[in-house]
């Protein structure tokens, strides 16, 4: 959007919304919306406390381990599905099913199987992220130009060369797209897991703050979470754009 011929940057309207929030907060219209400035002050206070840092660590740990497994398992499985018709036909119905299934319903099962702790949260995170990564890697391989593969074969490429020099790179834009969406889903998964299991990480903090009506604390944690997830998503989108120059003409 342009104002007086000057182009406003994309997300700049968020500042306007923040201002609105501050005003509503200052007017004390509702107890649930404290002024933004007060929330930031609280954030500075709790940002250095042990509980907060511990929650951040636990969440980060679950998140990264969960997405790590999702990528390390998801990408090769997806590539294999794209290359091998039999594997594809056997796995695809399940992948599609889990992609659209409400995975929240599985969390109670994970709780009874793996306990009320980190392990269940990690598995929840992986489950949220992995299916889209598999599907996108598969799609990436399926759209590979046949003649790229034939070119490599005609120069006598070994299967290993074909995999690492052709398939992986040619599918990379889609793989990265899948990983980006996988990350976003994983953030949601890790929070949903913590909310339902609610003894570790931010889940416990939310419980604590909301039962004591500590609104500023609650919002402070929310803002941290939203900011982190937004930054992660943007970084991956940037990475994806960097390889997308060749996505159009493989």
């Amino acid at each position, binding site marked *: 959007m342009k104002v007086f011929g000057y182009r406003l940057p994309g997300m700049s309207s968020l500042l306007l919304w923040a201002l609105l929030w501050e005003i509503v907060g200052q007017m004390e219209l509702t107890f649930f919306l404290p002024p933004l400035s007060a929330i930031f002050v609280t954030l500075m206070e709790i940002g250095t406390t042990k509980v907060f840092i511990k929650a951040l660590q636990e969440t980060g740990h679950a998140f990264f381990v969960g997405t790590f497994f999702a990528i390390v398992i998801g990408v090769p499985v997806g590539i294999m599905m794209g290359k091998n018709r039999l594997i594809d036909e056997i796995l695809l119905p*399940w992948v599609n099913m889990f992609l659209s299934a409400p995975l929240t319903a599985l969390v109670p099962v994970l709780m009874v199987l793996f306990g009320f702790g980190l392990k269940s949260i990690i598995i929840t995170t992986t489950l949220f992220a992995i299916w889209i990564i598999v599907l996108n890697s598969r799609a990436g391989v399926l759209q590979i130009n046949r003649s790229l593969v034939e070119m490599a074969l005609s120069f006598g490429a070994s299967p290993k060369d074909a995999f690492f020099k052709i398939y992986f790179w040619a599918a990379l834009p889609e793989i990265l797209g899948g990983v980006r969406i996988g990350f976003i889903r994983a953030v949601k998964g890790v929070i949903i897991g913590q909310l339902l299991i609610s003894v570790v990480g931010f889940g416990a903090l939310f419980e604590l703050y909301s039962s004591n009506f500590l609104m500023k604390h609650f919002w402070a944690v929310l803002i941290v979470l939203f900011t982190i997830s937004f930054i992660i998503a943007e970084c991956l989108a940037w990475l994806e754009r960097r390889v997308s120059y060749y996505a159009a003409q493989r």
Partner: protein
Amino acid sequence: MRYRSLFLNFVSASIVFGAWEIAGRIPVSFAFPTFIESMSAFWVLIIEGTLFTAYAETLRPLVIGVVISTVLGVGIGLWIGLSRAFDWLVSPIFIVMQTAPLAALIPLLIMIYGIGLTSKVFVVCIMAMPVIVLNTSAAVRNTPASIIEMGNSFLGSRRDVIIKIILPAASPIVFAGLRLGVSAGFIGAILAELKITPTGVGDIISYSRSIADYPTMYAAILSIILLAVVFLNVLERIEITLFKGTRRNYVSD
């Protein structure tokens, strides 16, 4: 050849269910019933009618939430797609909502709206709406300029151009967004039942877990997953028949 895919589906289902049965027999965990046990619990749930009353309960916030999200979401998305200023003002909020773990808002919603239907509807809405809005706005914005210019050159009014050109051109992607929205709505509805108050299917799951009736718990979970998958597949079929031939590439979540 025609039966190949059917046969392979059958094979892969037998492998998975067979593995489940075996894992249940070993058993890998005291909380892991066999496939057959779960299926008979499923059968009992159906015969006693528990499942149907439960779904009547579960589907209420889901349906209300999805309807609200659809109406509001498509409306807002359309407006964003048509107006530069509104786009600048509003889309960042939905972009943030799309990437953020909105489930974290649930404790807050409980505080504000209590543990009733309103909270649950809200949960469904915040999960379903962003993807609907973003898909709609992207679809509207990406309407090929040439067909809009065509409409203008034949002296179509602004209203005509929107209703007769932009909306039909955008509808495949809007519909795909709706499907993704419903999918997210399902996640929200279950989350609400597990986190806010156990009602409906959430109640069966929580209750059978508390009395360690694991077969029933697995059956209930399986039923909700099946329901969601079948429903979303039906939506996808409708989408394919409605928009045959139009290329579907949509903003995914």
